[in-house]
């Protein structure tokens, strides 16, 4: 039963090289194979997730070697939520890209690299060893550099180059911190490191924590580390933008930041203040920058910076409400931002452009796309029935309760700014009246994932209903509040 936690990584790695070996000539067959492998992972992750949510965390020893000798893998409610979300989003994106990638050559290679990226993302979520996290982080990142540049146009290559350089700066900082940890404590296993960490001098500890924090904040694209994100996320092919904005930066950045702040560096509660600062900066800056964008994909990319800022603010506030707000906001934003990027991809597929000025009055020509797009925009802006409204509300209440009234006011102002730029966009792009509209809807295979995601955006607030909340989100929040890696005893299996 516990073998299930390693399977997503194994499935994705196997899928990547099987597609490269067997189906590299046939685009249809390779797409079908990719979809079925992702579906398999969705099922595995949901089954292991149910196990985790009912019986508590699972530990797994690769090669049968127990800690501190071997590599230990762990799945607990927090990582399980991220795992299930990653695979579900990847499934919709994969369905979408079977049709969308027809206009690019070499689609089988796209599936191969996509699978390697997913393997890296799943691997980060199950690791309990700091170097293991780094290895999977690099696997996922290097695959994403290639995917950003997949169209091979000059701007895409430039964006990918910028992203690569910035990302390697982050990797260097993280690797330096890992080297310091190994030098000071002689181990890379997280529980073993934590039991040694109390003997370190505060200067060393702060230096290591600072390196980790800036490295992973760079991957999360918190202001002032955000410069690569608008280029990379707006130049990539639409499915890649969707998964990068929707899941990638949250798995590679936010998840590790959550682990660092709440579970690993518990001796340094001041990290939260820094996160609060970064969060507020990126919230305000991303919102203001998004307001003036002419290109829709770039607008969405800046909006991602702004919304991830909310997550960082929630993480910085901490406590029960803050942690709940982070998780809920991450889930709701993952659904809605994926939906929006897939939506602009469908518009680009039909109209061939993403500029605001050339796209007007789409409601008459593409009604279904318009409907799904408006749902996603209202979702991110935080209009009441959607999940984002509740998550923003929770974060604001948490800020007021913790005494950060100014930050609560800023959160409300940025929420209004968000609603402002999305309404402005909707008014021109979707609902402006044009003469003689030509009705041409996107293909069904593009519409289906968008429709499913729109439904999920609409009902994602259901996770907060009493009764469901206790079984799902509360368990993950209790991991963020009370869990410490040091509680895991040697020889323990669950």
């Amino acid at each position, binding site marked *: 039963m516990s073998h299930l936690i390693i399977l997503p990584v194994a499935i994705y790695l196997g899928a990547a*090289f099987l597609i490269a070996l067997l189906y590299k000539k046939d685009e249809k067959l390779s797409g079908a194979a990719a979809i079925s492998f992702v579906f398999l992972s969705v099922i595995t992750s949901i089954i292991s997730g149910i196990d985790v949510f009912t019986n508590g965390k699972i530990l797994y020893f690769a*090669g049968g070697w127990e800690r501190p000798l071997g590599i230990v893998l762990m799945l607990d409610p927090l990582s399980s939520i991220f795992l299930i979300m990653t695979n579900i989003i990847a499934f919709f994106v994969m369905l979408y890209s079977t049709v969308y990638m027809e206009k690019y050559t070499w689609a089988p290679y796209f599936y191969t690299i996509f699978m390697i990226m997913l393997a890296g993302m799943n691997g980060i979520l199950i690791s309990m060893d700091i170097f293991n996290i780094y290895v999977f982080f690099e696997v996922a990142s290097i695959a994403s550099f290639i995917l950003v540049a997949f169209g091979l146009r000059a701007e895409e290559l430039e964006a990918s180059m910028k992203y690569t350089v910035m990302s390697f700066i982050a990797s260097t900082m993280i690797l330096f911190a890992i080297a310091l940890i190994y030098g000071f404590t002689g181990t890379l296993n997280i529980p073993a490191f934590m039991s040694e960490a109390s003997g370190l001098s505060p200067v060393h500890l702060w230096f290591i924590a600072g390196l980790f924090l800036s490295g992973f904040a760079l991957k999360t694209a918190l202001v002032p580390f955000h410069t690569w994100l608008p280029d990379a996320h707006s130049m990539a092919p639409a499915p890649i933008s969707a998964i990068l904005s929707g899941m990638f930066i949250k798995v590679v950045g936010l998840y590790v930041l959550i682990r660092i702040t709440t579970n690993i560096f518990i001796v340094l509660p001041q990290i939260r203040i820094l996160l609060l600062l970064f969060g507020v900066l990126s919230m305000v800056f991303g919102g203001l920058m998004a307001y003036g964008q002419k290109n829709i994909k770039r607008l969405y990319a800046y909006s991602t910076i702004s919304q991830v800022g909310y997550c960082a603010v929630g993480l910085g506030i901490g406590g029960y409400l803050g942690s709940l707000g982070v998780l809920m906001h991450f889930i709701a934003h993952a659904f809605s931002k994926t939906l929006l990027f897939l939506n602009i991809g469908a518009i680009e597929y039909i109209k061939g452009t993403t500029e605001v000025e050339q796209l007007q009055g789409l409601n008459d020509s593409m009604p279904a796309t318009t409907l799904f797009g408006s749902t996603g925009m209202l979702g991110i802006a935080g209009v009441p029935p959607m999940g984002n409204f509740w998550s923003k509300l929770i974060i604001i209440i948490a800020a007021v309760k913790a005494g950060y009234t100014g930050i609560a006011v800023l959160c409300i102002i940025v929420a209004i700014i968000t609603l402002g730029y999305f309404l402005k966009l909707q008014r021109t792009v979707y609902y402006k009246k044009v003469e003689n509209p030509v009705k041409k809807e996107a293909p069904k295979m593009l519409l289906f994932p968008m429709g499913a995601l729109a439904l999920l955006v609409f009902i994602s607030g259901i996770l907060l209903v009493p009764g469901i909340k206790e079984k799902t989100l509360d368990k993950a929040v209790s991991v963020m509040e009370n869990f410490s890696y040091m509680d895991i005893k040697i020889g323990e299996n669950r």
Partner: protein
Amino acid sequence: MNNKGMSEIVKGIARIVFPFILLYGLSLILYGHITPGGGFSGGVVLTGGFVLLLLAFGKDYVFRILPVDIAKALDSAGALGFLAIALLGFLCGSFFYNLLPKGYIFHLWSAGTIILSNIMIGLKIASGLFVAIAVLSMARLIHTKEGIKYKQSRKTEEDQ
């Protein structure tokens, strides 16, 4: 054919040295669990032999010995083989479980699945790196009036 590549002396030396490079690479891979070395370093040495041929004889000659398509297939096969060894561990209870007999220490057959893993990694690294260098060798930068342009072709100059 003869006028391609470098001078006759370089070709002669390359022809003599090439088998020894391969042998050294193979020994690094096979003895990786006993002595310094292993799948990665051995694979890189193997690729080094082919790069020497590529520099001495030109790309047509090398692609006749090891076609790029076959190298691509070997690359995937190496990765899949490594994964298969890891998955075999499920038979005895754990991912990557070393289920083969361990043998005697310092003998060639002495570490269970490690030697198989090393062979698979060597295959993967050697062919993967070869493909990367082959792709680089196919690329040309052409100076035109508008600036430098990038061109990539798999055709040899004789075909054109």
